[in-house]
């Protein structure tokens, strides 16, 4: 009998309330380190298991195959749908192309991700942990491989406790081989997001890929193999900050995977229940079969109530429902529920489910606003830009006829995937001449500058003030960039400096 089963057996005699927290004396006895207790999760069938399989297929499918999706952008840009192009400092996501200075969209995404996590938490607790977290998804896959090679819980435990035979070793070797293959593929898919996938695959196969690609594959192979294969629930218990933050953010209305102890206690075996019922005594629906514990990927007993180790994947619900169906008892002894509802039922009141509360509405509103702002700015952002740097030395130049001249370097940005002609003009001085160094002068001071596809161009601009009025120390000037074809405009202000007024 394992330590856990011993614990469960002891809890059999407890009344229909969650176990009390340990007293202070007990806490002092808890050792600083504890050896990991190996968990042999048992396979299970049911609604939540199916949901988890579907989520696993979708998320891993997207992760492994997305780099191979093609997206035609014409001859001057890569044809990969999702590409983080570090050498050229571009990020491509289907029809969106981001430049490094637009990194703030990442901030927006992070805000959305955080608030989305909070909303999930307010609605149904650790949905992220149970279904979506990469640690959960990969661990799930690794456990499936483990059951495939070493057998399900009983077979696995039995073989491990018996004298190890050649078959045991062979099965273990197969498991680790498959684990490593998955880990290696995980690292391989990662690097494909940073270069043209088909080309890189070819280079990787022929040994011509850059060293950094092999290094990253190695790193991710190692992390995947160790985190999903060996550390598993230790990551959730000791490494991940989210369970601790989650506990502080949650409230009593959030739906959690809950053992309905109002219905389950006192837990009694089927045989004994018959006898007790015959005597007219009350018995609970829980038959203490421990199926909920055996299927749990983190090895906890959900009947002890909401706890840190519970990632709320719902597999114990499936396990319990299967047993209840066999016994002909009602389903959902374990279900998504709240402690408030348990108390309500105990007191004879009707349970209530409040998904719409100020908290969830606030989160939803923040998501809507942040998402809306991002969508709006993304949809209306200009595909052209201009920035100006005024000469630092000299700040101004006196010409031989006494006129004042300022020098600027302007950088014109063309974010479109085609070559464009821009008209550049400088306004704000009463009488001025604008000269573009290296480009033929034009009488109206407006200059046509051609910028290549997805490129920037630097031009030196000289602005000369011919007004004979004493120049101010600083005058605001406006640089305008106008697309010669479409008339799209980008503007930026700078200054025209003169000597300090005496």
């Amino acid at each position, binding site marked *: 009998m394992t330590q856990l089963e011993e614990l469960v057996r002891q809890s059999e005699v407890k009344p229909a309330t969650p176990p009390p927290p340990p007293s202070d004396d007990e806490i002092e006895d808890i050792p600083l380190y504890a050896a990991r207790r190996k968990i042999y999760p048992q396979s299970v069938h049911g609604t939540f298991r199916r949901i988890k399989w579907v989520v696993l297929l979708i998320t891993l499918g997207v992760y492994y195959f997305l780099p191979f999706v093609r997206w035609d952008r014409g001859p001057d840009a890569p044809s990969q749908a999702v590409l983080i192009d570090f050498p050229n400092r571009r990020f491509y996501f289907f029809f969106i192309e981001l430049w490094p200075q637009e990194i703030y969209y990442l901030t927006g995404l992070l805000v959305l991700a955080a608030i989305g996590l909070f909303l999930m938490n307010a609605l149904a607790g650790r949905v992220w942990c149970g279904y979506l977290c990469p640690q959960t998804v990969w661990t799930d896959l690794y456990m499936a491989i483990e059951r495939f090679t070493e057998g399900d819980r009983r077979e696995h435990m039995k073989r491990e406790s018996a004298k190890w035979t050649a078959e045991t070793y062979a099965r273990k070797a197969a498991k680790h081989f498959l684990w490593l293959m998955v880990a290696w593929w995980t690292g391989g898919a990662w690097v494909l997001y940073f270069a043209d996938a088909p080309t890189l695959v070819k280079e990787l196969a022929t040994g011509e890929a850059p060293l950094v690609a092999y290094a990253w594959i190695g790193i991710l192979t190692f992390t995947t193999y160790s985190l999903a294969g060996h550390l598993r629930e230790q990551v959730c218990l000791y490494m991940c900050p989210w369970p601790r933050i989650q506990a502080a953010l949650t409230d009593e209305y959030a739906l959690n995977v809950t053992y309905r102890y109002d219905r389950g206690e006192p837990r009694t075996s089927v045989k004994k229940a018959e006898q007790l019922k015959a005597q007219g005594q009350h018995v609970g629906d829980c038959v203490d079969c421990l199926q909920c514990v055996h299927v749990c990927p983190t090895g906890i007993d959900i009947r002890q109530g909401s706890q840190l180790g519970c990632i709320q994947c719902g597999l114990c619900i499936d396990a319990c429902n299967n047993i209840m169906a066999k016994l002909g008892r009602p389903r959902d002894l374990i279900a998504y529920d709240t402690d408030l509802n348990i108390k309500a039922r105990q007191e004879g009141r009707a349970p209530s489910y409040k998904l719409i509360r100020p908290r969830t509405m606030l989160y939803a509103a923040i998501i809507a606003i942040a998402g809306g702002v991002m969508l709006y700015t993304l949809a209306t952002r200009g595909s052209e830009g201009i920035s100006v740097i005024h000469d630092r*030395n000299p700040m101004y130049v006196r010409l031989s006829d006494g006129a004042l001249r300022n020098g600027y370097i302007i950088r014109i940005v063309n974010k479109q995937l085609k070559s464009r002609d821009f008209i550049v003009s400088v306004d704000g001085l009463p009488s001025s001449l604008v000269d573009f160094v290296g480009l033929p002068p034009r009488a109206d001071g407006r200059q046509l500058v051609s910028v290549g596809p997805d490129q920037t161009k630097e031009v030196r601009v000289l602005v000369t003030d011919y007004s004979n009025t004493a120049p101010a120390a600083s005058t605001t000037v406006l640089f305008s960039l106008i697309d010669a074809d479409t008339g799209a405009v980008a503007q930026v202000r700078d200054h025209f400096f003169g000597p300090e007024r005496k």
Partner: protein
Amino acid sequence: MAEEHKHIDTLTGTATTGHEWDGLRELNTPLPRWWLWLFYLTIVWAIGYWIVYPAWPLIHNSTQGLFGYHSRNAVVEDLKELHAQRGPMMAKLASASTAEILADPQLLDFARAQGRVAFADNCAPCHGAGGGGAKGYPNLNDDDWLWGGKITDIEQTIRFGARSGNDKGRQGNMPPFAGVLKPAEVSNVADYVRSLSGLPTEPGADLAAGKKLFADNCAVCHGENAKGNRELGSANLTDKIWLYGSDKATIVEGIEKGHGGVMPTWEGRLSEPVIKSLAVYVYSFGGGEK
């Protein structure tokens, strides 16, 4: 370490160091094993380092190490790589004329980028970081060029300098007139020169005498109309740009003591592509002359 200090703390079961302050003892807690092994590992690592890298100083040299690594060689390697990378563009710069560089946008960008660095290294001490100049050192951003502002003129001045001792350099200087003109005459000439560009003159100045003295002494170099002569590098005295200053005292001093600022010759000191890059960079400050 001594045995007599081996006092075992009852609460932790750990030995103490034997130090005691007012009854407080210092625990001699053993190091964590992982820490100790890491420490030993660093010692092994250090020994390996001595062997494979240059480490021990000897009288004339140092131990060379098995890898043959030297940071100086690493720099040389890096520079070699850099030169190889820049090679094609540098070759193009060397063979192209400055006019051709100005006409080729790609070459122009490369030349200006290189010119910016070369200017900061070689020219900025006198001409300022952005070519703004200083007293006696011309502002390269304006439209007044002592020796000409065409790209070929600028290249010539950079290559051979002015009053630099190079035979091909710009020649001609402003001689001192202290023994030639009397102080009153110098004063009159100075006032006349100021009047040429519309600056106020001192009351009582004899501008007619000054004009006569100018024609006799100065016009040889500065020209009848005082607009200067680029063959000799003589300044245009009628414009608003003054290399040394426009106040009368400065002009008087200039006439009495003369001027002869030196622009060094850069031929042989800078490579051909760098000299051309500098010419193009300086030309782009204010657009030069066509």
